[in-house]
């Protein structure tokens, strides 16, 4: 029977191959259909503008943003020789240096004390995460008042202790620090929430076993909590770094980049260059600088995090 069936079988095999190929194509189409909305929007609002930004950064434009003169790397050379932009970069890095460790250390402390099983702990957790629900604009308004030269609480407290009033937002020496303080406050909510989540995912048997071994509180903190929390900390640091480089709202609300450009952070500088001075070319060059900084941070995160973070 086998021998008789060969020609028929051969046809069957051919047909089979065709159907399987068709099914494969259909599956591909189906997959793409599910992804299409995301891919289309990413293309319009992410990939295209990224390419366009790079393109614009090599041109001078008229004030509606139409490229007019090709200038090569001149925009880049100009911004890096401009004291204003260099100052802006310096302020940005200082700002990052103030806010990232500040927010993380405070949040870590809060997360640790809020991770205990106590009555009413839910209330404290809610309090600690509350700043996540407060918008940049509202938070800036709150702090604007606290920083107010005469009525503000900070200066009132200082005058109680007999210290001279500080021009929190108006003194070039203080402005960046003041903005940083308010930013730390704004970022605590989110950072706290993530760190608390990380702490709660640590297996409590580790602590029970350490208790039996007679390890003290701080020993456990150092030897169990922090090492087990390191992937979470790592993630939080990366997010905080990226967020810090993208800061805009509080600058716009509190200082408008002043005094003496001391708080002219990168994104604010891009905004000012593009939408106030209509210098789209140089602004694009600055935007590319921002993109590269973020790219480097994320790449470092991927590289370092490879061992801990699995994207599978």
């Amino acid at each position, binding site marked *: 029977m086998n021998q008789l069936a060969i020609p028929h*079988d051969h046809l*069957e095999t051919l047909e*089979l191959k065709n*159907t*399987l190929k068709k*099914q494969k194509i259909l599956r591909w189409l189906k997959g793409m259909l599910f992804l299409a909305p995301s891919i289309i929007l990413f293309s319009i609002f992410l990939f295209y503008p990224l390419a366009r930004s790079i393109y614009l950064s090599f041109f001078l434009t008229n004030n509606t943003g139409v490229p007019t003169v090709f200038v090569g790397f001149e925009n880049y050379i100009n911004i890096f020789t401009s004291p204003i932009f260099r100052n802006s970069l310096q302020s940005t890095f200082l700002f990052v240096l103030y806010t990232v460790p500040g927010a993380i250390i405070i949040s870590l402390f809060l997360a640790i004390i809020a991770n205990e099983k106590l009555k009413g702990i839910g209330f404290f957790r809610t309090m600690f995460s509350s700043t996540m629900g407060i918008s940049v604009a509202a938070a800036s308004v709150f702090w604007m008042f606290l920083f107010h030269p005469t009525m503000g609480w900070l200066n009132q407290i200082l005058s109680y202790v007999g210290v001279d009033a500080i021009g929190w937002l108006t003194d070039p020496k203080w402005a960046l620090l003041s903005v940083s303080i308010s930013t730390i406050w704004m970022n605590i909510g989110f950072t706290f929430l993530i760190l608390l989540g990380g702490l709660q995912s640590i297996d409590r048997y580790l602590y029970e076993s350490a208790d039996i071994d007679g390890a003290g509180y701080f020993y456990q903190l150092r030897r169990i909590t922090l090492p087990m929390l390191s992937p979470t900390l790592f993630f939080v640091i990366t997010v905080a770094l990226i967020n810090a480089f993208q800061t805009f709202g509080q600058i716009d609300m509190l200082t408008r980049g002043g005094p003496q450009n001391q708080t002219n952070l990168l994104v604010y500088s891009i905004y000012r260059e593009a939408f106030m001075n209509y210098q789209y070319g140089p602004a694009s060059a600055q935007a590319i600088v921002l993109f590269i900084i973020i790219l480097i941070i994320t790449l470092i995160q991927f590289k370092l995090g490879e061992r801990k973070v699995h994207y599978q």
Partner: protein
Amino acid sequence: MKPVELINISKSYDQEQHVLKEINLTIEKGEFFVLVGPSGSGKSTLLRMIAGLEAITDGKLKFNGKLVNHLPPKDRDLSMVFQNYALYPHLNVEQNILFGLRAKKIAEDEQKRRLMQTTEMLGLSDFLKRKPKELSGGQRQRVALARSIVSESPLCLMDEPLSNLDAKLRAQMRMEIKRIQKKLDLTMIYVTHDQVEAMTMGDRIMVLNDGVIQQVGEPIELNNAPTNLFVASFIGSPKMNIGSAYIENHQIVIEDTLRISADITTVTGWLKERKFTVGIRAEHIKQTTEEHATHQLEVVNVEQLGNETLITFEIGNVLWTAKWLGQWLVSVGDYVPVSISMENIHFYDTNTGDLLKAAEQEKEREGIAL
């Protein structure tokens, strides 16, 4: 027309890793067919290929004479029960059971009729409005079963459906599944790693190892004439006692220690000058009186199972276990008289593991390990 035919079916990943090699198999209508093998043997993959959940690399799969390699699962007219039951957690029992019927847009009153019938058969009528997480393991199992039955597909596939249940429930469900299968005249392909399940449920069994068929046959056949050492040690509980052997002075010498007189005329021809391995089932190391004993063996371990006793002896470098019905008060260190008969011994080629000669006498039907 056979309901299921596998012709030279192979499976490999990336053209390298061969999971299944040239499987040929025909399954009869109304048959309870069991695929058994250790984990990683490819038995689940084979079942999933039959279901259409896994692509067939090579070969032909035919249902009722028609090629179905390319058909998606829904067009193969079969039902399947999964190891983890695959119950939809957000649907209640009734919705879970009717899931497939609704997907296929079967008429409402027909749905109702089948639901009534099935839930009554499985004793689920009182749980229809419960969610899966409010059910016990056994009840979930029944829901999965009901979902399969309600489809009224002639072919039913089961992938280790009982492995998440405790031992008692498992024994009960074994009977129930078998009963339903016979009652509805289903063609069943059942995957398990548990040889007891295979032996008790299967009309026919296929033993699979490393993607290669070891033996296909009825349970008795597998027990009485395992075609190779793998099947011999895989089927039966406790597993078959195995030892290397040679012939010397008209005697078979096992593990250099145990000597058994052989009727040389029946064995010399094909055993001479060959390294071979012998196997004997635990129930064939028989308890006997001093005068009928062929050997006196030292006991190294005793397991009292209540209705039977497992006694372990050391034979050279290997441990052999005897299974005696009833309760025997022996203790470690005792020498006990046993009788081992030539006619209960299976002979295997040491190098290939293939059966040279099955035991002559496997008449004792109580000897089938259950």
